[in-house]
């Protein structure tokens, strides 16, 4: 649950969120973001007092369900054209650094 309004988010929580979001952030950035996020969460506290127990969540505006189509063969993107955009490619595949690395 949220902390008290003045401490809605801690620097440690911001650092954890940055790791989850795969963003390298400096200590200065963590300090700045903590202040900004705390200010926003403070503003967003306006919905805290609403009784929403009987309200169904709304995830999308138009009541469409899964859309299916016939499974037919059709042209797809050209592999060479796609790989031409890659930072690194080799033998028709994307090339990446080692997946098991120093960070574990």
């Amino acid at each position, binding site marked *: 649950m949220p902390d008290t309004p003045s401490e809605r988010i801690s620097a440690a929580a911001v650092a954890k969120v940055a790791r989850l979001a795969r963003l390298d952030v400096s200590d200065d950035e963590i300090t700045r973001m903590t202040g900004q996020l705390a200010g926003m969460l403070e503003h967003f506290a306006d*919905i805290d007092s609403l009784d929403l127990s009987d309200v169904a969540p709304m995830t999308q505006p138009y009541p469409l369900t899964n859309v299916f189509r016939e499974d037919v063969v059709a042209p797809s993107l050209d592999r060479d054209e796609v790989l031409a955009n890659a930072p690194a490619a080799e033998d028709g595949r994307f090339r990446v650094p080692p997946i098991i690395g120093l960070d574990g």
Partner: protein
Amino acid sequence: MSATPSTAFEIAAAVRAGSVRAIDVLEAHLGRIAARETDIHAFNLVTADEARAAATRIDDMVAAGRDPGPLAGVPIALKDNMCTRGVPTTCSSRILEGWKPPYDATVVSRLAEMGAVSVGKTNLDEFAMGSSTENSAFGVTLNPRDTSRVAGGSSGGSAAAVAAAFAPVSLGSDTGGSIRQPAALCGVVGVKPTYGTVSRYGLVAFASSLDQIGPFSVDVRDSALILESISGHDALDSTSIPQGPLDLLSVLDHDVKGMRIGRITDMPEGADPDVLGRLEAAFDALRAAGATIVDVELPSLKYGLTAYYLIAPAEASSNLARYDGVRYGCRVDAVDTNSMYMATRAAGFGDEVKRRIMLGTYALSAGYYDAYYGKALKVRRLISDDFARAYGKADVLLTPTSPIPAFKVGEKADDPLSMYLCDVYTIPTNLAGHPAMSVPFGDSRDGLPIGVQVMASTLGEQPMFKVASALERHMNSSGVRS
């Protein structure tokens, strides 16, 4: 021959009739771009050579007795988050610099098939996150009406391109007001259609339950023309409504006699007095034209900002996970993939995008999901239910588009929350999936454009365009339009 056509409607008619050449129309627009683009910065890229080739093909078709289509020779500018095959598409982000999409967005291919001529890719707030275009990695777009001020955002480049007559029409995308707010600030028409009416295949995703593509234009008729052209089902977009194109041009001349225009009695406060003054003038004009003004209450509307700024970042944090340096865009090399992802994303994303990814990741994270994201989805339902009740009493609702006219460059750059408040009147529409449009309706005392927002229920584009058209007729006949 009559005067050089300036609207898309007139250009297409003249080019199809053979009375004007597409290449001459194009050169007139490229000439204005050459003269003024360095002062405005509407574009990330002007594709003059490709445009000349396309215009020449249109003229050749006309010469051969063939019809190039309903948008024959109409120059159009595209927000740089719409994929154009072989032409760089950046989202105004370093992380996509140099990327050339291997396919066209559906809207791009439809426009080309109808004879439109793309003149280039317009600037935006990075990944469409912002209300001023100041978050672009490639510099701010300035307001053609006053270049010390912002053009709005996130589709600021597309709004400015039309306001500066670099193109008669353009396309933008609207997630929380990103078409309507810059349209209001630049003094042009901007439309966010019903969710699902325009295909989003090839639109780079920001918040998938909110994003919609729509047009900018100088007059209401051109927005109707473009929206008719790009709407309709697309099998490549699974959120596309299975129906044909919208029918809009046929209703523009209808009068508004007997229509019910809703006034929101508990509208969120904080709008500039000049903005509220123009809104009152709009109610007066519609009343004089025979419409009835009815009061409606939407008690949950004031929570829209909170719901939006939890839902949109949550969806964005998921959609932007794909920028990891593996398949496209920039990469910062590192010893392993995880370090490479983190370094690439840190270098490639700007501050606002990082802020929203962080906010969204937090709102979705274990222990906070129910308190933030889950709650926001329920508030979204309350707002949608409020609208349903209001549209039982009114055909359309009228509000300001933006609480304030165009602000100075840098004025809000250091205060993210005050920037978010610019969207207070436009956000609820996106949460509900409804259509809404901004119509220029006079100026502030400082001579800055003010827009009035016309909102309607799901697939209520016809009543919305009728009212927008009536407001425009009022402005044209009162002669105060600058």
